[in-house]
C-alpha cells in the first residue's frame, strides 16, 4: 500500500450517524472477485436516489459510528477508489477501522465539534507525522493514533510481510504445542 504522509485538499461531508457498510457498498457489488473498480458503486442507492451528493475529494468527514455492520472490505475499497485518502469521524466501527488501515485509507478520530469545523472549512490538511488536522474553522487540532499503526501507515508497510519477518516465533509457538487446540479440518 501507498505510504501516508500529508493529505491535503477539499473536504466532503456526510452528515449522518451510524452509516452502515450496506449503504457504503450495497450487496449486489460484493459478487465481484476483483479488488479494484468499486468506486463507481460507492453509496450506490443514496447517490442515485438523490439522497446525498458526494464529491471525490481527498478527505471525507463523516458521522459517529461510521462503517458499522458487515465486515466487507469492499467498503473501504470503494471509498478509496472513489478518491478519499482519509476519513475523519467522531467514531468508527471496529472492523471498518481495521479494514481501512490495511489499505492505507487513513481513519482519523476527532471530537464531533472538531469534525463539524473541519467540514465547514471546506478544506483541510492532515499531517500523519505530527498527528494534526489543520483547517480554517478548526485551527490545528491533534489526533491520537496507535504508534505501531502510524509507523506502518507512514511507511506503507504490508502487515503480512511484517508478521512473516518473525515467522520463527510462529514456528516456535506451534512447536511448543500452542497450536494444538481445535480440530484438524482436513481429517473430518
Amino acid at each position, binding site marked *: 500500500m501507498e505510504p501516508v504522509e500529508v493529505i491535503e485538499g477539499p473536504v466532503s461531508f456526510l452528515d*449522518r*450517524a*451510524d452509516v*452502515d457498510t*450496506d*449503504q457504503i457498498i*450495497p*450487496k*449486489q457489488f*460484493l*459478487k*465481484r*472477485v*476483483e*479488488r479494484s473498480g468499486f468506486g463507481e458503486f460507492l453509496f450506490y*442507492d443514496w447517490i442515485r436516489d438523490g439522497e446525498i451528493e458526494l464529491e471525490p475529494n481527498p478527505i471525507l468527514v463523516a458521522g*459517529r*459510528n461510521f462503517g*458499522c*455492520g*458487515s*465486515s*466487507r*472490505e*469492499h467498503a*473501504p475499497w470503494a471509498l478509496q477508489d472513489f478518491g478519499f485518502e482519509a476519513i475523519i469521524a467522531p*467514531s468508527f*466501527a*471496529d*472492523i471498518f477501522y*481495521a*479494514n481501512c488501515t*490495511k*489499505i492505507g485509507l487513513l481513519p482519523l478520530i476527532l471530537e464531533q465539534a472538531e469534525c463539524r469545523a473541519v467540514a465547514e472549512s471546506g478544506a483541510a490538511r492532515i499531517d500523519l507525522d505530527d498527528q494534526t488536522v489543520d483547517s480554517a474553522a478548526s485551527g490545528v487540532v491533534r489526533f491520537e493514533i*496507535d504508534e*505501531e499503526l502510524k509507523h506502518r501507515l507512514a511507511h506503507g508497510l504490508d*502487515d*503480512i510481510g511484517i*508478521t*512473516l519477518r*518473525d*515467522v520463527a*516465533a*510462529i514456528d*516456535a*509457538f506451534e512447536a511448543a504445542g*500452542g*497450536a494444538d*487446540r*481445535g*480440530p*484438524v*479440518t*482436513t*481429517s*473430518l
Partner: protein
Amino acid sequence: MARTMFDKIWDAHELGEGLIYIDLHLVHEVTSPQAFDGLRLEGRGVRRPDKTVATADHNVPTDGTAAARLIVDQLSRVQVETLERNCEEFGIPIYSIGSDQQGIVHVIGPELGLTQPGMTIVCGDSHTSTHGAFGALAVGIGTSEVEHVLATQCLVQRRPKTMRISYSGELGHGVTAKDMILATIGRLGTGGMVGHAVEYAGGTVRGLTMENRMTICNMTIEGGGRAGMIAPDETTFEWVEGRPGAPAEFDAAVDEWRELPTDEGAAFDTEVEVDAAALSPMVTWGTNPGQVVEVTGAVPEPASETEERALRYMDLEPGRAIREIELDRVFIGSCTNSRIGDLREAAAVVEGRKVASTLSAMVVPGSAKVKAEAEAEGLDEVFRAAGFDWRSAGCSMCLGMNPDTLSPGERCASTSNRNFEGRQGKGGRTHLVSPKMAAAAAIEGRFVDIREWS
C-alpha cells in the same frame, strides 16, 4: 490475579504483542477471492489448511440448486466456482453447494463440532461473533486480514476492552434469546459495545440452549462489539460431544475447558445488568437494530434526524401501534435464527394454523443438515401445510445476494440480524423479531404479542 475468560483465551494465543494465533479460520465465497489472489501475487501459500475450512453460503440459491455450475446468476456462479478452485489449489477442505455438510458458515462450524471452547476463530464475516457462544474468542475480519490469516495463521489485533452483560431472572412466556439481545442493543445503541469483547453472563444465560446462546453472540456486532462470549458449561460440552470435530480425548478437553470461565473477582472495563424477567418480545421499527420497541409499544417520536429518516424509509408514523403494522413477507432463517431449535420453536407456533392470505412466508434452514433433521422430524410438513415456502440452506434473504430478496416497498418480519436500508432488497422494509414472533406474524398478517397465544 483473577482473569476474565477473554483474558485467558487471549493470553494463551498471543505470541507477540497484538499477534494472535488462530485455531480455526472459516472461509466463504464473498470475502475470500481477493485474499487468495493476494497470496498468488506474492507467491505465498496457506500456512495451515488443516485449520481452515470453507463453505458457500451468501450466494447460494435456496431452490435446491445442486452444484455451483448450475447457479443461474453468472456473478454468483463465478464467485462460488472461484472459491471451489481456490480451495482445491491451496488444499482447503470445502463444503460447497451440493454437499450434505453445506450451510451458513456460522451454522456449520458448531454443527460439525469445529467450534470448541477456548479457541480463537476468525472468518471474513461480521457475524463470526456467533462462535463465542461456546466460550471461544471469535472475531469477524476483512479480506486483507483473511489473507493475513491464510498466510500466517495469525491475526494482528489491538487488545479490546472487556464488557460483561449480566442477565438475571427467568424469561417470561414467549420471550426468547432474540428478545434479550434486541433489548440490550436497544438500550446500549448500535455503537454501545464498540471496542469491547463482551461476555454475556448470569443465571438467565446459563438456562439457555446452545442455539439460544448463538443467537445472542451472533448479534454482538449489531451493538458494535468486537466479540461476544458465553462461558462453557455442561450445555456446551454436551453439544460438542460426539460431533465430527470433537476432541478424541474428550474428557481431558472438558477438564481444560472447565478452567476457562471468568475467575471470581476479575475486573471488566464495563459492567451492564439486565433484568431478563422484565423483558418483552421485541420488534425493530427503524433501520438499525438499536431502533427497537416492545411488541405492545408504538413507533416512537423521532428524537434525531437519523430517526426521522428511518421512519420515512420504513413508511411509519410516530404513535402507530406495532401490532397494527401489516406485513407482506415473513423470513425465518439466517445465521441468527436458522438452527433446528429455532425451527422447532417456529413450527410449534405454526402447527395447525394457516399463513395469512395477504403475505408470503418462507423458512430457510441454516444448513443441509438442519434441513435433513427438520424433515426427519416432519417440521417441513408443518410449515408447508401452513403455507410456508420450505427452502434449501443458505444466507437467503438475510442479505439478498441470491435470488431471495424483498421488492421495493415490501415489509418483512425477519428473524435475521440487520434491518439496514435495502439490506433484504432495495426499498425493502425489515422488522427484526424472534422466530416465534415471525411465525405468529405470518399467521396473522401483522405483528402479534406471542404471549397472548398459548
